[in-house]
């Protein structure tokens, strides 16, 4: 999961969420359809570097520190994408395809890095509003998206609590021992969150 909003004053921060979503979607689609060749890897990397440079994160390194942090978070995805292709398709396809996949994820990450969730919520709700004529609840869908994004750190903390409690009781790590209490805690959290949302006026 890429980390969320970073304050900044660059062009992407100033852009309205809706147009920004379309621009980044266009960029993601463009890098996705590149050929599996060396030059495509260079183009994909170039687009990402330019994207992070113009974002204006104010990290003192023209966005490259943030880019490095985001890339580090993707290391397992890169590994899983790169190694099998290297074995079966050769180095050129492996590098190009891995570059395209990581560029797409990193460009998508620019949306949440430069957009407050409130603005994203408003943009999604506005974008889905035409579907209301088909009895689609755009507000509920937008809130669902937001809650999904913001529940990730809570679930991570619950998982850590379960692991710590089991370690404290001398239990050996295991999927079954972990999954049951984690599932119960997660469902309990979902129940409480549902009540809190109702209490805050969400239908």
């Amino acid at each position, binding site marked *: 999961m890429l980390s969320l*909003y970073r304050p900044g004053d660059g062009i992407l921060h100033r852009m309205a969420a809706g147009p920004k979503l379309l621009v980044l979607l266009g960029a993601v689609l463009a890098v996705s359809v590149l050929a599996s060749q060396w030059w495509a890897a260079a183009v994909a990397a170039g687009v990402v570097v330019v994207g992070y440079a113009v974002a204006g994160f104010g990290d003192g390194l023209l966005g490259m520190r943030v880019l490095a942090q985001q890339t580090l978070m993707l290391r397992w995805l890169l590994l899983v994408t790169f190694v099998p292709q290297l074995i079966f398709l050769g180095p050129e396809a492996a590098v190009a395809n891995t570059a395209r996949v990581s560029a797409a994820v990193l460009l998508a990450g620019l949306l949440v890095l430069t957009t407050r*969730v409130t603005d994203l919520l408003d943009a999604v709700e506005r974008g889905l509003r035409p579907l209301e004529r088909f009895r689609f609840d755009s507000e509920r869908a937008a809130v669902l998206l*937001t809650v999904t*994004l*913001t529940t990730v*750190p809570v679930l991570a903390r619950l998982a850590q609590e379960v692991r710590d409690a089991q370690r404290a009781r001398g239990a050996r790590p295991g999927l079954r021992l972990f999954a049951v209490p984690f599932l119960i805690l997660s469902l309990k959290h979902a129940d409480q969150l549902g009540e*809190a949302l109702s*209490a*805050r*006026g969400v239908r």
Partner: protein
Amino acid sequence: MNAAPAIRLDGVGVRLGDVDALRGVDLALDARTVAVIGENGSGKSTFARLLAGLVQPTTGTTRVLGLDPARQAGELRRRVAVVFSNPDAQIVMPTAVEDVAFSLRPDRLSRDESRRRADEALDRFGLDALRDRPSHDLSGGQKQLLALAGAFVRLPELVVADEPTTYLDARNARRVSEHLLADRGHRLVVVTHDLALAERCETAVLFAGGRVEAVGHPTDVIAEYQAALAC
């Protein structure tokens, strides 16, 4: 003719699964601050959820601020705010200011107005320096204050707080209690095991086994509760 009390329950029962959480509850409460005390499983939290329209009565009638929670849930939620014991379960948005502003979404305010009121609420609860901090990185006390800011930003007529100090240390519990009890033009119903907090309310209600055992001045009701615990 006397005005109707803010909270009125007539023969209210609530069945949750196989359990009668509330049984034949008759209550008329009009005090500004009401403490609800009792042992675990006595029906206190169900009573709080009933007032907020989060559970429906199986029998009897309920009126909160003159509204029927079963039929007028939307209106009730505009006028009643709820604070739960676990602040983590109340936080929806990634930063403090966004989370407070989230409470104003049903009011469809402009973005500027929403931000202004959220900033005011954060300021009032001493969280202005934390406005852009990730909500889930706040301490337990700060999270509960954030939950209070999210509740009070809507200028509710009634605040229902279900064990709001349970997860807090003594200092934060005191701060949260002060904010709840301060007169901001709201009524308060607070479910609590903190008898010092209950003592500071105008009226107390003692629940046991899903029934109301006592209603009256907190000193008398707490004494009755302590006598029951000693048996």
